[in-house]
């Protein structure tokens, strides 16, 4: 069963190597590798389902000398979302990159990106995570620039440099940790911190955590460090934008969550968590406002990513204040659900936006009416994704926001609820501003799908966010070892 942990890395990596060596067959080998990866992640998730946690010491060298891989419920949930979203993106990309010259650049970088994402969700070693982060940053920036226009190059060069600043800051934290604790392993580090031998160790650990979280927040585009995201995500080719918004920033967020709540839990304070929550609140308000003002569909989607990441950080102060127990584990499940729902919704939205852009030749929202009316499936995708972004039932984000609301009230931190309401209202406004374009007096088109291969994956992703995650949450609750607390 633990073989699937290693294969999560090896399958996409082997795919990347093969498509590098055999560029003529890139699309076929690439899609096959992604399918194989999805299959393997299904096995891995099944393993976590049965055993709660899978562990592996690579090369049979136990930490601290070796590198450990751990898959728990959170890892499995993120991996499963990544596998499904990347499968949909890959099917779509096969259609999008029809020009073989662009396809041969896309596939190897895309599979390397997938390798690094899987590695990030599995590695329980601070330095191995650093190498994965760099693999992620380099492949993401190179993919984002595939469009080739000057704006895309500039935006992605900035993204690359910001990412490097972030990972260097993270690495300084890692070096401090090694100097003080002589281990890079999550579990060993957590045990040492929980013992809390010397005050100086706590200080060193807190400084290192601060550096690592700052570096990762830059990569996760936490307000006000989000400035690089909208141009980079707005200018990338549609399948890449989908991956960047749904998966790449989510990986950095996942690491912050993991470090904050598990490894460094004894060192975190309510004040620091409040700061994260405050920045999250800023992101919700600012990102939603900018999404409302955006002229272009892809920029709307990118600013909405800034806002949705903000919601994820609202969970920190509330989680911090709760004692271990039912409510807390439910809230932890809620933040996971929020991240998953946004991953599915935003990738669906970006894929649909890319198809609209291809059909209309532009993505200026004010002029999209006619195009949207000719594309019923894509319009449905936009509506479903929008439902999840607002957080209306039956979307996964509705359940997550409901639990967040409950947690905030139980904790006496009612002010976060105001942010939640304001963000939701703004989201209603920016989603409806887009959707009103789709309802005119044009004749009904004869076909539901114009191009099934381009529109189908986006529709499935959006349906996943709004239909499946909101209704069938029980498997996720089981995976995360909680009751759910809704019924």
């Amino acid at each position, binding site marked *: 069963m633990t073989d699937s942990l290693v294969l999560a890395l090896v399958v996409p990596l082997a795919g990347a190597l093969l498509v590098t060596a055999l560029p003529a067959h890139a699309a076929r080998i690439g899609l096959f590798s992604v399918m194989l990866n999805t299959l393997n992640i299904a096995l891995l998730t099944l393993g976590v389902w049965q055993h709660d946690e899978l562990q592996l010491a690579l090369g049979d060298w136990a930490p601290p000398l070796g590198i450990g891989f751990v898959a728990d419920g959170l890892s499995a949930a993120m991996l499963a979302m990544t596998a499904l979203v990347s499968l949909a993106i890959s099917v779509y990309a096969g259609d999008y990159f029809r020009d073989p010259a662009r396809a041969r650049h896309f596939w190897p970088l895309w599979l390397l990106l997938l390798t690094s994402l899987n590695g990030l969700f599995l590695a329980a070693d601070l330095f191995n995570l650093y*190498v994965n982060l760099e693999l992620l940053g380099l492949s993401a920036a190179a993919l984002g*620039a595939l469009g080739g226009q000057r704006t895309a190059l500039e935006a992605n060069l900035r993204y690359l440099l910001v990412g490097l600043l972030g990972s260097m800051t993270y*690495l300084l934290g890692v070096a*401090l940790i090694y100097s003080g604790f002589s281990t890079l392993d999550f579990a060993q580090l957590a045990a040492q911190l929980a013992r809390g031998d010397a005050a100086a160790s706590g200080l060193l650990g807190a400084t290192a955590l601060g550096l690592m979280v700052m570096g990762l927040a830059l990569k996760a585009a936490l307000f006000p460090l989000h400035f690089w995201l909208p141009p980079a995500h707005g200018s990338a080719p549609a399948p890449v934008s989908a991956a960047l918004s749904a998966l790449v920033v989510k990986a950095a967020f996942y690491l912050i969550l993991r470090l904050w709540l598990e490894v460094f839990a004894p060192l975190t304070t309510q004040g620091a968590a409040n700061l994260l929550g405050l920045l999250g609140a800023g992101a919700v308000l600012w990102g939603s406002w900018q999404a409302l003002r955006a002229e272009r569909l892809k920029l709307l989607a990118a600013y909405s990513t800034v806002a949705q990441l903000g919601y994820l950080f609202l969970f920190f102060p509330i989680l911090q204040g709760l004692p271990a127990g039912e409510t807390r584990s439910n809230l932890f499940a809620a933040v996971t659900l929020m991240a998953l729902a946004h991953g599915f919704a935003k990738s669906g939205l970006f894929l649909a936006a890319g198809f609209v852009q291809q059909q209309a030749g532009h993505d200026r929202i004010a002029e999209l009416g006619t195009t949207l009316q000719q594309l019923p499936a894509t319009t449905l995708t936009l509506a479903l994704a929008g439902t999840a972004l607002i957080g209306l039932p039956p979307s996964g984000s509705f359940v997550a926001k409901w639990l967040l609301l409950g947690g905030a009230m139980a904790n006496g931190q009612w002010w976060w609820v105001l942010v939640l309401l304001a963000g939701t209202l703004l989201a209603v406004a920016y989603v409806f501003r887009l959707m009103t374009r789709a309802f005119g007096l044009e004749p009904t088109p004869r076909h539901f799908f114009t191009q099934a291969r381009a529109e189908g994956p986006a529709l499935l992703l959006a349906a996943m966010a709004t239909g499946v995650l909101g209704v069938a949450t029980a498997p996720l609750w089981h995976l995360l070892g909680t009751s759910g607390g809704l019924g």
Partner: protein
Amino acid sequence: MDAELLYASAGFILFVLGIWSLLLHRLLIRKLIALNIMGSGVFHLLIATAEHHGEPADPVPHALVLTGIVVAVSATALALSFGRALRGDGDD
């Protein structure tokens, strides 16, 4: 003062100087040099960490530095290539 503490101290100064140069200079080449100086700062700290009096040096930080150097070279090369593509010519 111990040599290793001096080394770590120099590492922190290099790191901070790197951030300063990265944030306040506009030219890509200066930004990239700045990032590499930041990296050198971290590597200084790791090398200082490897020293323990009377014992052979700890090989783990040394290996981490080697890995870090390769990653830094890769990132720098890619960023330079972006710069060249942005400039649009390439007769340098």
